[in-house]
């Protein structure tokens, strides 16, 4: 069973009594999850560096006195691991009881964010609503932050630092930081200010990784009172050519929010502010449904596409006839895919015979 350590392909360990294979470099948690073990975690986001803070993922390793965090421990050949012993399950339950005791509430609206139900579902799984360990509460909400996107309801924060780490590791923005220490730990921004004054780009990644809903999607929460279950529809974000996968959240016929698709091949859970939050134009009452052209009266009037395109072509032609071909200039939309952008520059170069072509993407 114990294999040579130099064989990086086919290594073996024993997991809850079963011989399992792994590749060198994998963590015990990764191996266990692949084997279908339901090890509880709260500080883990598979996209981030293992952190080892919540300690829920601890497992027993034979030959090591104390349990180890499976998320930070690399699988080793010959390792004998127990993921669910009685003492381990007791530690996990106790941690969850402690967490319940420090928070204002456990149950939150699923509209708060992608991972917002993680904490409550673990609390239920372990029957941790025992009312033990009563004491002071940690974290204080920043309801004074009136940015339109991100609710900072730190009364619910459990200091897992996923928001801090996703902002640093995934986004490279370092907008979120940690103030104080121990029980006084407070998630904050530079100089304890508002998100708007920080390096935040409002990509919403912190919201989507937060396991308690302490960071929440303000726009989605507007639909909290709307009746009906949340329905998810997988699609591709229409904003630019990257093609990020998203799940559109709807209640009945109403679009209420967006979740990034963690398995989206182009984005692996990432989104930008537009894809994440700027969805309300879709069902906005002022959204244009047909083209408009200006009439003799100087007002805009609804029309059909043929009429509108003829008017545009006539306008360009008049400009070129009057001022020469260099008087026109085209800017392709960043929302157009590469193919459309290609057609656009072709039209400008071959059709107008000029090189005045640009794209609005300046990211």
């Amino acid at each position, binding site marked *: 069973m114990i294999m040579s350590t130099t064989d990086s392909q086919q290594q073996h360990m024993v997991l809850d009594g079963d011989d399992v294979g792994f590749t060198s470099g994998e963590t015990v948690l990764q191996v266990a999850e692949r084997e279908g073990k339901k090890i509880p975690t709260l500080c883990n986001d598979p996209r981030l560096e293992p952190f080892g803070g919540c300690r829920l993922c601890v497992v027993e390793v034979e030959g090591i006195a104390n349990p180890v*965090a499976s998320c930070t421990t690399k699988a080793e050949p010959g390792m004998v691991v127990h993921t669910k012993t009685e003492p381990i399950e007791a530690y996990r339950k106790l941690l969850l009881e*402690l*967490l319940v005791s420090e928070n204002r509430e456990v149950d939150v609206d699923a509209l708060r964010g992608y991972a917002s139900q993680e904490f409550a579902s673990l609390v239920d799984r372990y029957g941790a609503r025992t009312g033990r*360990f009563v*004491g002071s509460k940690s974290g204080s909400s920043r309801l004074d932050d009136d940015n339109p996107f991100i609710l900072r309801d730190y009364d619910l924060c459990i*200091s897992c630092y996923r928001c801090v780490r996703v902002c640093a590791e995934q986004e490279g923005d370092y907008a979120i930081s940690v103030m104080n220490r121990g029980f006084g*730990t407070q998630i904050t921004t530079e100089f304890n200010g508002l998100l708007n004054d920080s390096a935040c780009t409002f990509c919403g990644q912190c919201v989507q990784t937060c396991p308690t809903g302490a960071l929440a999607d303000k726009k989605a929460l507007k639909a909290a009172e709307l009746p009906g279950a949340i329905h998810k529809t997988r699609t591709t974000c229409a904003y630019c050519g990257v093609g990020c996968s998203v799940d559109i959240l709807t209640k009945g016929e109403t679009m209420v929010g967006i979740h990034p698709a963690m398995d989206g091949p182009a984005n692996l859970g990432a989104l930008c502010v537009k894809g994440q939050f700027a969805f309300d134009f879709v069902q906005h009452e002022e959204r244009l449904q047909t083209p408009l052209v200006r009439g003799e009266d100087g007002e805009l009037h609804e029309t059909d596409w043929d009429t509108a395109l003829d008017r545009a072509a006539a306008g360009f032609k008049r400009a070129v006839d009057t001022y020469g071909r260099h008087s026109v200039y085209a800017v392709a939309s960043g929302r157009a895919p590469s193919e459309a952008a290609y057609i656009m520059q072709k039209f400008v170069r071959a059709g107008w015979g000029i090189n005045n072509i640009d794209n609005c993407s300046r990211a």
Partner: protein
Amino acid sequence: MPCAGRCDEPIPVIRGDQVLIGTDANDLESRPSPVPSPNPQGREECVFRHIREPDRSTIEGYRRTGGYDGLTLAVSELNPAQVIDIVRDSGLAGRGGAGFPTGVKWQAVADASGAPKTIVCNADEGEPGCFKDRAIMDHDPHAVIEGMALAAYATGAPRGFIYLRYEYPETLGTLQRAIKEAEEAGLLGERILGSAFDFTVVVRRGAGAYICGEEGSLLNSLEGRHPFPRNRPPFPVTHGYEDRPTVVNNVETLASVPHIVRRGADWYRALGLNDLAGTKVISLSGDVKRPGNYEVPLGLPLSTLLYDWAGGTGSSRSVQAVTMAGVSGGFLAGEDLDVTLDEPSIRAKGSFLGAGGIMVFDDTRDMVEIAHFAMEFFAEESCGKCFPCRIGTERLTERLAGTAGPTNLTAWLDEVNDIGRTMKAISACGLGMAAPLITESLLRYFPERVAQHVAHQARD
């Protein structure tokens, strides 16, 4: 008020770059930290061997009694492996808390691939009741520098840091002056003593966090990162400062090395009693007639130190309890005071000697109140990385203060024991693992007092 590491003085106050001592705000004086007194039994010492000699903190004073002879010997006559052999054979183990064998640590760094390697002297001395590193650095700074240089020679490290706790402003000046003297004498810098060995030392100040004494946090702090402890493995010997092989050693550990290299492994081993190797500096404070730093042979009975060396409580009162490892080892009391000063003896009682801080409490002291102070310290200093310690230290503090928690004794004990057991088993670093030793030992030695406390909690 931050801790000035002067537990042996009445009331220390830090003002600007000075530590002032006194009992009245209008009558404060700047006093150098006390030179350790010689022990009354005339026991042979290692670290304090020459510390009382005049001008010891200057390079001339240091050289007068063989200072830098160890480094000279190593650079001119020994190869790095031989230096490591001497340190390993001496049985020297870490004096900063964990007691890891120093020679084994150096060997691991010497063997590790990756460069440049680094020597870090852990001078954060944050443990309540520990003020030994301060005495060593204030009065024998060159011993620390020579110890670092020997570690550097042995492991092939060209750079070193002294991570000094913020609250030792005068010590900073002393170290910087000593480093300059050593550089001018060609004992630090390039081509040390005319050899091919280069080594520079820089002092970095901490910012007032106990957790920065934990080696992973210390390294993160040195690198300018948030000082959460690092996940282990990997250990600093392979992935330390800037993820490169690094020795992290305590001040006392490093200050022992020059004596060991000069006098040999057998000499050091023989300093201990009962087959134990070497000596340990104990910082003794609290209800004791002669507080201060004492270098004891490992294996010395605690009672010999308390009564014969330090004069007992100095009153008609008896010793009710002592802390171990500063406060990290919890309390010893009753028959368990009958230990010898060494890890095997003290660990058998569920505690540990650690960095060697011992606080004495006579029978007038309220042990629940003292336990509360100690737990409040851990709660204040918990870094907040891991759940069991971040919340556990707070809940234990509240229960010891009587401000929250059950009023029924059985329920109270269940909560306190359950939290303690969990913290000990699965906290992410030594702080959270050690903190519950306070409640564990309190419950062991003072159950009646605890019952009384639980019954009489003042609660709105």
